């Protein structure tokens, strides 16, 4: 079959399923109608290069396959890349400056050496996830890079707190929102256009969680990660974590820069049917990212023995994870995994569990995280017109020989 995934979306019956996956399915009676086996998810892949899957060369966008995200702290080489414009090459670290202006008492310009010497330097493991992570699974499809699962990472970031720098400059009472600017260029080459310029509410900028980072995993920032200076806004859409950072403008209104307006990084204010588009007045700006988990071991589609160790990570923007449950019988029964505490607030949490699957055949391991506000991952995608916030449960296919 050319595209089994599409055939299942069109409603192929469960009787067909066992033949299609090429194995006995011990829990076949639990499979809902219209269900797409996880074994077919790999047909959404795009070409591979150096462990990252390239979604687009210009702008450069690449994600990491789930099984390559097994580390507690994501290596720099496995951190997804989402660029919007033409990146900065060969940045002069010594000459780089960050300007803070707008509604501050003392506008200032800092070199990276100034930031290091004037403010406390902190290192934290922090989750950055693209708001469009999981867009590839939307039906009907939505516009944008078709990220599958790998536009998320948790690296060790070193820098100074944005809150400390803003407080040093003195925030004026009218301050409402930040506006971020970088040195990358619009793809058209037009110097008057910003490739992206987003921001966060001033309360978020001052909450102490946001870093102005100059190191990733104890090395200077990599050119693809915004060298030599970037923001890291943990648990918020990755687009807030501005790369090649040169300026933060404090404003008395919600920032209206590139990709802050229209439909960008916005979701409907009320639930919609898949395919239903709402007007711009009924969209809200995405803030914290929802509860989610990722199975990083075993790799989707592997064939193995009856003893299975399952590992992964779970996270929820501005919250911690209380529990991760796993199922190997299409959701009929669930078992709580062993769950580690986060390395620090803003980091993901590792989970693991062992299963004995004594009957050979086709299984799926499903993971479902519950966060500290009792919110749980849904089974289905909460469809929206730009394909954001897919936090549906991750399912991994497993064949027991």
């Amino acid at each position, binding site marked *: 079959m050319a595209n089994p995934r599409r055939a299942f979306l069109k409603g192929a019956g469960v009787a067909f399923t066992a033949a299609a996956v090429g194995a006995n399915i011990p829990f076949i009676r639990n499979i809902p109608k219209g269900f797409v086996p996880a074994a077919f998810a790999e047909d959404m892949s795009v070409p591979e290069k150096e462990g990252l899957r390239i979604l687009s060369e210009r702008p450069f966008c690449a994600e990491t396959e789930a099984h390559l995200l097994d580390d507690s702290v994501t290596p720099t080489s496995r951190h997804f890349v989402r660029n919007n414009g033409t990146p900065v090459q060969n940045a002069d670290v010594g000459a780089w400056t960050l300007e803070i202006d707008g509604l501050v008492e003392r506008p200032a310009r800092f070199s990276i050496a100034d930031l290091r010497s004037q403010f406390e330097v902190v290192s934290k493991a922090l989750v950055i996830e693209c708001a469009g992570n999981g867009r590839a699974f939307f039906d*009907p499809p939505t516009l944008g890079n078709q990220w599958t699962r790998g536009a998320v990472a948790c690296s060790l970031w070193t820098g100074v707190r944005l809150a400390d720098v803003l407080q040093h400059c003195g925030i004026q009472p009218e301050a409402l929102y930040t506006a971020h600017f970088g040195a990358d260029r619009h*793809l058209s080459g037009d110097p008057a256009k910003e490739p992206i310029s987003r921001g966060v509410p001033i309360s978020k900028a001052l909450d102490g969680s946001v870093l102005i980072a100059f190191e990733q995993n104890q090395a200077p920032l990599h050119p693809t990660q915004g060298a030599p200076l970037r923001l890291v806004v943990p648990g918020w859409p990755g687009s807030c974590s501005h790369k090649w950072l040169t300026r933060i403008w404090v404003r008395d209104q919600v920032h209206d820069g590139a990709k802050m307006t229209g439909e960008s990084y916005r979701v409907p204010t009320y639930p919609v049917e898949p395919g239903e588009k709402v007007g711009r007045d009924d969209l809200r700006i995405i803030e914290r990212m929802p509860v989610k988990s990722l199975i990083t071991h075993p790799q989707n589609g592997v064939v193995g023995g009856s003893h299975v160790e399952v590992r992964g990570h779970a996270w929820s923007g501005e919250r911690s994870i209380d529990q991760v449950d796993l199922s190997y019988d299409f959701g009929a029964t669930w078992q709580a995994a062993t769950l580690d505490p986060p390395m620090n607030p803003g980091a993901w949490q590792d989970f693991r569990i062992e299963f004995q699957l004594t009957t050979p055949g086709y299984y799926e391991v499903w993971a479902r995280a519950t966060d500290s506000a009792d919110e749980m991952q849904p089974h289905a995608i909460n469809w929206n017109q730009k394909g954001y916030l897919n936090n549906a449960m991750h399912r991994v296919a497993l064949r027991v020989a």
Partner: protein
Amino acid sequence: MKRDCRSHLLLLAALVCIPIACAQEPKDPPPEPIAPASFGVLHHAEGVAETFAFCTGCHSEHIVAQQGLEREDWDDLFTYMEDEHGMAAIPEPFKTKILDYLSAHYGPERPHFPK
């Protein structure tokens, strides 16, 4: 931006002129066929040359090939690129030809989603 698009119009003119020149000079050897690789990951069909030439003036054709949109959504996307990214309006007959190509090969069924 506008200069980029003009340079691609020249490329496009060169591409579409080949068969015309061939028709006028039947004794000339046939032109080298345009290999599918010339259009990157785009599906090789009527309209691919125009689509590749206009789209890759600003961005990779990979971003095109990932989408699965209805014709009217492709049209809206052109408007978005004009309004938000300074793209010059695509002149006819190219716009219709590109819309025909995209809606036939990059619709919601995603028959040519990159593997």
